[in-house]
């Protein structure tokens, strides 16, 4: 890189932060980090609950009487596919953040849309999976505690994805308005990556580990 380019890059790296906040990280970004730290414990509690209950196949059946473990019905190839879709959405999110930092609005809209679509595809997959369990396998939310814990955990994650998709679409809408802040897209991106990482954990712990 030429000296000039490097100089300006440096100015982009830490342009104003040194003067604005004590840590150099903007309030919004730091706030999101702190919130995500909090969210870790939310998922931690839910994952622990599932781990405690997953091997209680419910010798004592719940209301609908299906005593099978929910893990017996997992369709790993299908869920691997939806997990891959969600992971790819992290890539498009990164590209979106990159686009907004470069000031490329067209690309930003493209990548925001693709991220939201990929997130929606993942949600569709989850709805399909749930429906499949309930309709074909007769395994509902109240069937047994393992099933309840499974639905509660993955449902909570699903709600996070829904919120993420809504935020992405809102960002998209705002980008057609008068202005959009790169920082805001970046903060939404933080949230989105977090939701993805949590899914990696859930997929490993719930689906892959027998």
């Amino acid at each position, binding site marked *: 890189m030429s000296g000039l380019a490097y100089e*300006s890059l440096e*100015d*982009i790296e830490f*342009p*104003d*932060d*040194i*003067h*604005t*906040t*004590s*840590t150099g*990280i*903007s*309030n*919004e970004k*730091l*706030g999101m980090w*702190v*919130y995500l*730290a*909090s*969210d*870790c*414990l*939310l998922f*931690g*509690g*839910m994952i622990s*609950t599932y781990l*405690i*209950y997953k091997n*209680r196949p*419910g*010798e*004592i*059946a*719940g*209301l609908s009487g299906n005593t099978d473990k929910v893990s017996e019905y997992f369709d790993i190839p299908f869920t691997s596919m939806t997990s891959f879709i969600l992971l790819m959405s992290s890539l498009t999110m990164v590209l979106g953040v990159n686009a*907004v*930092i470069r*000031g490329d*609005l067209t690309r930003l809209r493209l990548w925001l849309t693709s991220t939201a679509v990929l997130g929606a595809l993942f949600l569709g997959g989850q709805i399909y999976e749930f429906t499949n369990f309930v309709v074909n396998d007769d395994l509902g*939310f*109240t069937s*047994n*505690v393992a099933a*309840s*814990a499974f639905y*509660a955990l993955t449902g*909570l994650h699903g709600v996070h994805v829904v919120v993420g998709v809504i935020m992405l679409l*809102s960002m998209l809408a705002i*980008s057609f*308005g*008068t*202005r*959009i*802040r*790169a*920082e805001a897209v970046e903060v939404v991106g933080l949230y989105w990556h977090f939701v993805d990482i949590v899914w990696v954990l859930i997929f490993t712990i719930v689906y892959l580990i027998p």
Partner: protein
Amino acid sequence: MAIIEDQRPLELTTGHDPVAPEAPSPLGVFARPKANTGWRSWVNTVDHKKIGIMYGVASFFFLLVGGVEALLIRLQLSVPGNQLLSADLYNQVFTMHGVTMVFMVIMPMASAFANYLIPLQIGARDVSFPRMNALSLWIWLAGAIFFNSSWLLGGGANGGWFNYAPNAGVTFSPGTGIDFYAIGLLIMGIGSTVSAVNLTVTVLNMRAPGMTLMKMPVFTWMNFVVQVLLVFALPVITVALLLLTLDRMFGAAFFDASKGGDPFLWEHLFWIFGHPEVYIMVLPAFGMVSEIIPVFSRKPIFGYPFMVGSGIAIGFMGWGVWAHHMFASGMGQLSVLAFSLSTLFIAVPTGVKILNWMATMYGGRIKFTVPMLFSIGLVGMFTIGGLSGVTHAFAPADTQQTDTYYIVAHFHYVLFGGALLGMMGGLYFWWPKMFGHFLGERTGKWHFWLMLVGFNLTFGPMHILGLQGMMRRTFTYTSVQGFSMWNLVSTIGAFIIALSLLVFIGNVFFSYRKHRKNPVNPGADPWDARSLEWMIPSPTPEYNFAEIPVVEEFDEFWHRKYGHDENGRLVRIAKTEDVVESSDPVTVHLPSPSYWPLVLALGMPLVGYGLIFNLWWAVPGVILIVAGVYGWVMEPATDPDGGHGHDDHHDEPDEPDATELAAPETAEAELVSASAGSTGATAGEGDSQ
């Protein structure tokens, strides 16, 4: 420079000038609130001081509510075989008392001080997210009112404040009380999370130049620890409450052993939250005492790094002791042993604090003002509570004490004798700063002594009752059990506490009337104090600091007033009047008021009622929440008429705000001000043209 400006990463223009004034009316729903006086100025405020005062007033109101419930308990237990309350009503009264005192008195009263004082002590003009600050107040208040409305809608919760399963399930608690408990706490938890994120970021990000972490006052430090604890503890109780709600309303069986669930899971989840919660309640009071004692001993706090370090240590170790609440549950010897040991260890940092307070007083020129009396009261009473706590750490003893009045005595000594006494001291100490006049000193002493005597009469005998075997949560006893005398003493004590609170209310009322008749301003620094909040006029001006101070050492304000001569003796180097701020600010722009936090918060209890009674009720609630969120996002954080006042941490104190005049959002304001600060440009030139 222009090239760099064009590539600024935090901002993007889409053809319009990014800092051009926006239309003042957001979405055309509300006119931007302008009122500076009257009730509207409180409803739409985003000022951390007003929010703090509202937290204080509301939590004091709930103190009276919880106090009346306490008096009902004590009346019921005053004589054996009493028929005043039925067993069922008694269950509701003690549960509501506990939950009210924990979540609606101690925590929000600590929030009141934290909100008011943290920005002042770190030299900021507001918290990092002013509107979110208002949001957390309104959500908490909505949740608290929602929770207490259960009295009118079928009866309060009746499972004790920790609401153990399986009693909390539908089978054993078919009424709606537990539902109000679960959803009310979920709502208040959302408010607390918002507040915790906000204050954590405030402490990390908003400090004045030179205010490094290890120069922060101990009060700010302890509250910082508390906010971090809240960030990590609240999601755990959220999980527990979500599971409980799913159990009760959607037919799951997480805590129902008859369907394969595990009641034990509730206990663990609750106490993983519940034990840090204990420190969440008591550390703010520790912080206040650590401010008050040095001022009235005229010595710096003894062992500041240890004071901070022990607070952090308590914060960490508080996560490893939760199961000492569950020694009687049969969780296995190894667990009991581990938690017994860790509980003994946590007494160490707490003991460090107590010794440091005493060492601070040692050799000092102590002035026994009311705040100092309350602080000394805390040191004494908390020590008693701490020592009885150590006796619980020994599992064999604890299995005898579990669920007896000995436990009740212990936690009232730490929460009343610790948290509440400390906060009462804090009220007397910071009252002149908040309201511009003193509380009556003589009346205050009456208040203190009545409260101390009443408190010891109420809870001291409970140690004896507990060791004699009187069980808690039992609505009556017989005369042959030998509990009669101490119960009567305890009831008399409770009424003395009530009297002391009346004295306090009278003090507030009469000192205000006296002030109205003959206003005497206490001045910026009535106590000859040490930290930054005493550098600014009393009552605190809306903008806090006319000029953001530059901090060089711990106890900055004190060091500006006093130095040492060659013999190491304290000498005054400057008159207080010369050190405190007197200049009027030229252009300080404050965060603009907003209605949206209130709108958003109003939706929450509606959703709660909807979940409990009829889902249709939730519809307007959801609409309010969605409208609140989008109204909030679309509304510029600052009115175009003014910029932010709190983000001028750059090195040019002379023109901090003129540069931010038209900045529409916080981050942009920071951006513009900083870039303008570095280039010496004004607002119009600071954007990316």
